[in-house]
C-alpha cells in the first residue's frame, strides 16, 4: 500500500490516516506536500484527479483542508491527501509537476481564499477579479450578499 511507503520514506509526514467506504485518506502538513507529491508521482500516482478544499470555521488552528485526489492509472488505486491550512497561510503549488493543478488551484483560491505558493497566475477563475470575499467559505451568505459592493463592501464576509 502506498500509505506505508510514504510513512517509510518520509517518516513523520503522515499526520493522520483513515479509511472510509474503501477510500484511503492521509493528512500531511503543507511543508511536506511537495515531497509527498513527488513520492506519489514515483509510485505511479501520476494522475491528479481533483483539488478542492473544505472550510471548517470552528476548528482550532487550521481552518481549511485542501483536498487532493490522486489516481494510479496502473493499479487503479485512489488516494486522498488532505492538507490542513490556517486562514492566511499558504500551500505549495503543484503546477510545476501537474499542469492540471493550475485551474484547480485558481478555483480553490477563488472560492476559499487559500494562497498557493509558486503558482504562476493565481487569479480568480469563476468569479470576477474584484469579487468581494470567497463564495464557498461557510460565513459567505447563500444569497451572494453584497457582491457588487453597493454598500461599499463593508460586510464581514467581504474581508479575507
Amino acid at each position: 500500500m502506498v500509505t506505508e511507503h510514504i510513512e517509510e520514506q518520509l517518516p513523520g509526514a503522515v499526520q493522520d490516516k483513515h479509511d472510509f467506504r474503501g477510500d484511503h485518506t492521509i493528512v500531511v502538513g503543507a511543508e511536506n506536500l511537495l515531497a509527498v507529491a513527488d513520492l506519489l508521482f514515483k509510485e505511479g500516482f501520476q494522475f491528479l484527479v481533483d483539488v478542492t478544499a473544505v472550510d471548517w470555521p470552528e476548528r482550532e488552528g487550521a481552518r481549511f483542508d485542501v483536498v487532493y485526489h490522486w489516481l494510479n492509472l496502473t493499479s487503479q488505486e485512489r488516494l486522498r491527501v488532505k492538507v490542513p491550512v490556517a486562514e492566511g497561510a499558504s500551500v505549495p503549488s503543484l503546477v510545476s509537476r501537474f499542469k492540471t493543478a493550475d485551474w484547480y488551484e485558481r478555483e480553490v483560491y477563488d472560492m476559499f481564499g487559500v494562497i498557493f505558493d509558486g503558482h504562476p497566475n493565481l487569479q480568480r477563475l469563476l468569479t470576477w477579479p474584484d469579487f468581494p470575499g470567497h463564495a464557498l467559505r461557510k460565513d459567505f451568505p447563500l444569497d451572494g450578499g453584497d457582491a457588487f459592493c453597493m454598500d461599499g463592501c463593508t460586510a464581514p464576509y467581504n474581508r479575507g
Partner: protein
Amino acid sequence: MDSIAITRQMLDGDRMIVNMGPSHPVTHGTLRIVLELEGELIMKATPEMGYLHRGVEKLGENLSYNQFIPLTDRLDYCSSILNNVGYAVAVEKLLGIQDPPRSRVIRVMVSELARIADHIVCLGINAVDIGAFTAFLYLFKQRETIYDLFEMAAGQRMHTSFTRVGGLMRDLPPEFLPLFDRFMEECPAAIDELETLLTRNPIWHDRTKGVGAMSIEDAVNWGYTGPCLRASGLAQDLRVAQPYLDYETYDFDIPVGTTGDVFDRYLVRVEEMRQSLRILAQAKRKLAEVGPGPVIVEDYKIALPPKEKVYTRMESLIHHFKLIMHGIEMPVGEVYSSTEAANGELGFYIVSDGGKNPYRIRVRPPCLPIFSSFDEKVRGRLIADAVAELGAMNVIAGELDR
C-alpha cells in the same frame, strides 16, 4: 481594478485582440476566449469562464441529498441522466447501500442512451462548426428519439432528475420498450450515415487531422479523462477500470486513438456510440432476466414509502414526515465517487457531518481540466483550428462553471 478586458498597454507588439464569446456561435454556451492574433495565427488564448457560475456547490450545502438531484441535471445538460446516476452512486457509496437490481439495469440503459445523445451533440456540433451541416441533421433525429425515451421514463426531456438516493423515481412505462426497440434498429444506420459523410471525407481530414494532438503523458498530466484521453491512446474507462452498476457483467470494448487529435476524438466518439448500443442490447436482455421488482430500496429511512401506504398506514406516514423534515440519517465521513460520464470522469466528493444536508459537496467536472489546456493546444495555430479544437473538447459551460 484589474479588469477582465485586456488593454492595448498590456500587449507587446502589434497583436490584434479578438474575442471569441461569450456569445460566439462556436462556444455553445457562455465561454469567452481572448485571442491574441498575428494575422490568422493565434499567439495566445486566454479562456475566461464563470459566465454560467451558479454556485452549485454552495447551493448543495443548503439542500438535502435528494434536493440536490435537480441541480445535477444542469451540470452537463446534454446528458443529464449521467449526472443523476453519478450523484446517486456517490450518495449510495456514502450510505453504504446498493440500489435494487432492476434499478441498476435501468440506470445502465438510460446512461448509455444519454452517452449516445451527448456524443451526437458533440460530433454534430463539431461538424457544424467546421462546416459540415448535414451530419448534424441526420443524427439529431436519433437524439430526438432518445429524448422521447427520457420523457417517457422521467417525464422530462432534458432535465430528467430520474434517480433518487437508493434507486429511481419510477419504473419504465410499458410504452418505453417498443420505442427503445425502434431506436435500436434505426440508430446503427444513422451512425453509418454519419461515417459515410465524414470518416473518409478529405475536407474533414484536412480540418481535423493533426489539430490538437497530444501524447498520453501530456494528456494525463493535464488531467484528461474520457474520449479525449482515450483518443491519445490510453484505454482508461471507469466502466471497466473501476466498475460500478455491474458494468463488469457487460461485454464491450474501449476504443482508443493514437494521436489524440480532433479526428481521433471523432473516431473514438463514433465507436463509443456503437459500443453503447452493444451495452444497450445486453441491458435489455438483462432487464427481462431481472424481471419486475422494486426500483428503489425498500428502506423507508432512505427512500419515501409508496403514496398508498402513506395515506393508509400510520407508520408510513411517520416515515414520510421524518424523511421530508429531517432527511436521511447519514453517517459522518467523506467519500469520493466517480463515474464515466460522456465527457470523462465525473466525480462527486461529499463530506457529511451527519446532518440533513451535505457539509461540503464538490463536483469534479470532466471538461474543466480538458479546457484548461486550450491555450497550449491552439498556440501557433489558425483560428479555424481553435474552432475545431473547442468543439472536439466538448466543453459544456454548465459543468465547467457549475
